[in-house]
């Protein structure tokens, strides 16, 4: 499968858009007219369609196959959501229209807020974060603002982060000038209250925990940990990446969470889109609610008002232009309305059941770092079972491609050696799970029976064979340079 770059097939004079050339007129450019060629070849419409349709066919997608990516949660993306987000009343309104002309949009935001706060049992929702990592920053900013309000900016500098955390957690903390202090997990894969107790103190601003954690285990001590941190004057940031395991069944607010971002795509099915756009609204506890960023949605009787003033109350300011990812809000709301409370609970149950089913069926073949214990929505294996086979986790992953699967998440979390993290989600049928399990068993047996060559050569049936990532990084070619290659 080959498709040239558009720069190799386009012509500067070709356009797939008809725009009428204006009549001559006196310009108002103040002498700042662009003079040199831009370097943007165009394609006619039929060529454009073909170019992108052909490119698309080089992609794997949920719609075409299972995507067992642990912690990334690739679930079904209903097309109803796409249709709703495209209603002119949502897609064709400007963020700065008079608020009297967008009351329905504000009401949709209010309803989304109601659902998310009910599911989390928390106090306030910051709508503007553009993605999960942006939500983390937002939550930590609220925490930092609360600490500043208490006059403890200079003394509370530490953020506790477990070793199994996603890299965004320490990165976000560092960005705000916090120091990261690592907290170990026990042999059972979870953080123990005792270890937190010995790490916590008056210098601790917050703890960042993911729950269920990235090993697919529920942090059983979460209530005690929250208490420890709060009693020490710190805040509890919960990474909501794995909310999809417990949505409708357990409420983070009940565990003492102060701030949690919610990746709408993981729990509420907004499409991943090859890497975005995301949306990461942040739920805040009563302790942090006053520090929510601008804008703030306020109901005044029949009327909804978006207060955009960065000086409003104790709000910590603005973290993005306008009011958040409206298009994603509509999709997530459509998903929640479709499920209802019970449906969301059922989705969580099915996700967890499916992960445990995969775990039970792969038992005896693959090795697990924390033994054979009940998992939540994802199941973690390591590469101990492959030792001596000459097959690495990467090799195994690439061989899955030749079987028609996207690999599971590999080498994450870092706490498991050669990690393989499988999340089937609630969107797979039992037949699909059984085929996946059978395929993994068959591949696994091949790996153990010495057929390592097959794995080293994989993938062979993909649009590309293994790509040289070292070359790409050593001599970065980041744009088309006119025929160079």
């Amino acid at each position, binding site marked *: 499968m080959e498709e040239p770059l558009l720069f190799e097939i386009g012509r500067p004079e070709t356009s797939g858009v008809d725009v009428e050339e204006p009549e001559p007129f006196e310009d108002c450019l103040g002498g700042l007219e662009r003079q040199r060629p831009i370097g943007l070849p165009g394609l006619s419409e039929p060529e454009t369609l073909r170019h992108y349709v052909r490119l698309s066919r080089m992609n794997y997608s949920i719609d075409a196959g299972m995507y067992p990516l642990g912690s990334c949660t690739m679930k079904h993306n209903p097309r109803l959501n796409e249709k709703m987000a495209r209603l002119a009343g949502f897609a064709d309104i400007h963020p700065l229209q008079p608020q009297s002309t967008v009351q329905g949009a504000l009401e949709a935001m209010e309803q989304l807020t109601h659902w998310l706060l009910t599911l989390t049992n928390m106090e306030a929702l910051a709508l503007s974060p553009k993605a999960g990592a942006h939500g983390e920053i937002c939550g930590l900013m609220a925490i930092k603002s609360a600490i500043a309000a208490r006059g403890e900016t200079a003394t509370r500098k530490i953020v506790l982060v477990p070793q199994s955390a996603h890299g965004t957690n320490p990165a976000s903390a560092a960005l705000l000038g916090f120091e990261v202090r690592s907290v170990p997990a026990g042999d059972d894969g979870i953080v123990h209250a005792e270890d937190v107790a010995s790490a916590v103190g008056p210098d601790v601003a917050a703890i960042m925990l993911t729950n269920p954690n990235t090993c697919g285990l529920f942090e059983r001590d979460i209530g005690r940990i929250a208490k420890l941190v709060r009693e020490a004057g710190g805040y509890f940031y919960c990474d909501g990446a794995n909310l999809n395991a417990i949505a409708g069944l357990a409420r983070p607010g009940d565990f003492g969470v102060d701030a949690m971002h919610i990746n709408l795509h993981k729990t509420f099915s907004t499409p991943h889109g090859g890497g975005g756009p995301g949306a990461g609204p942040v739920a805040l506890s009563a302790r942090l609610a006053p520090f929510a960023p601008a804008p703030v949605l306020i109901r005044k009787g029949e009327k909804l008002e978006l207060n955009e003033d960065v000086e409003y109350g104790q709000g910590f300011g603005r973290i993005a232009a306008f009011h958040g990812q409206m298009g994603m809000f509509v999709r997530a709301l459509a998903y929640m309305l479709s499920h209802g409370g019970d449906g969301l609970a059922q989705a969580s149950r099915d996700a967890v059941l499916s992960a445990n089913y995969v775990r039970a069926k792969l038992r005896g073949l693959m090795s697990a770092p924390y033994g054979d214990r009940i998992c939540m929505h994802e199941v973690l294996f390591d590469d101990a079972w492959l030792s001596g086979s000459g097959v690495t986790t990467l090799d195994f992953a690439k061989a899955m491609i030749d079987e028609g699967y996207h690999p599971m998440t590999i080498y994450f979390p870092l706490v498991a050696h050669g990690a393989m993290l499988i999340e089937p989600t609630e969107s797979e049928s039992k037949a699909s799970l059984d085929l996946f399990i059978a395929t993994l068993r068959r591949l696994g047996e091949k790996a153990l029976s010495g057929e390592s060559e097959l794995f080293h050569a994989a993938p062979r049936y993909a649009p590309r064979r293994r790509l040289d990532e070292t070359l790409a990084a050593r001599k970065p070619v980041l*744009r088309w340079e006119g025929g160079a290659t």
Partner: protein
Amino acid sequence: MRYHPLTDSDRAAMLAAVGVADVDELFADTSAAPASGFALPPGKSELEVERHLSRLAARNLPAGQVPFFIGAGAYRHHVPASVDHLIQRSEFLTSYTPYQPEISQGTLQYLFEFQTQVAALAAMEVANASMYDGSTGCAEAMLMAHRITKRRKALLSGGLHPHYAEVARTVARLAEDEVVSLAPDIVAQEDIVSRVDDSISCVIVQTPDFFGNLRDLRAVAETCHRHGALLVAVFTEAVSLGLVTPPGEMGADIVVGEGQSIGNALSFGGPYVGLFATRREFVRQMPGRLCGETVDADGRRGFVLTLSTREQHIRRDKATSNICTNSGLCALAFNIHMTLLGEAGLRRLARRNHANAVALRNMLREIPGVEPLNRSFFNEFTLRVKGDAAELVERLAARGVLAGAPVSRLIPNAGLDDLLLVASTEINTDEDRAALVAELKGAL
């Protein structure tokens, strides 16, 4: 539930295989409150959800239904039907971040094309695979300048979009960096050059600026470079780059902007797509994803995400930023629309925008009580109007015209209540302009 493939008999068989009697046993660790604790309504059929959301949508006034002149950082352009069709292809819509490049060449190749297009538009050497939006990209550019210059004080022009300035100030304050903001600069008269010294990491200037003025950045670039500072150039209307001198030709070190106006809907403010370009020498300090060319085991050209050692999933707290999402699908929409336009189409589109805005300005300046302030502009300009602009806009909305953005909505309490930003793109017809003029006369 229509989205759940498992049947009750499937569930029973799976529980048996797992070896538990009830699914609740799997949740023992959570001490979960019973589901009945959630006061949420039951699920709805697709028909019911459509009705519910359509009712909400019907309470909004879509831009396409009225003469429409709002800009101020988000612009209504016509997006070809094929763009939306293509981004809804399952293989684009429902694919993951291309960490497995062998089965993600579609995404990777369009990101590479996108990077090339953005770099060309900005006249810069390299661009990344997109940011959340222009405003967050702008704050990231400031942080990048801090890393490069090892200084922590940014100087913001008074022509920078107020939301962008607020985001930069918020980030800086909480990261314990410093920001100096110049006063709102309505007609591009501020003296930036004299404010630059050796403590400044970067100057952030927008062109066309928030008030619509085009700015020649050469002097400020030269000054920045003399003091070891970087020039960050911002734009919020990407279509302008089809007609005006690009920042890269005026000495900018980082160019960051909003890409919404090419390929993407207004969507009440999001999702949008941030464009981010810089010099090759700074690439390892650049935030966000990068796609690079390489070869596969058979020697065929292919693309991968690269330089990820900058990123959080490798570097953790040493990362260049915490970003692990780009705006993939919006970047694709930008990429496709730009491909359809091509150089000739983009230039024509930009000229058409400018022509429409000039025509509108010429009509408006004949109205008593309305004073256009700009000496230069692309497709948006500032009016001084008699009375309060925000109230005027409300009155005009009631008359069925969305007339523009009152400056006071973005810069409150600054004595700018009589300023109105008016934008005009290719969507505006003679009838639209006539309606605005007529209603403005009536409402003033």
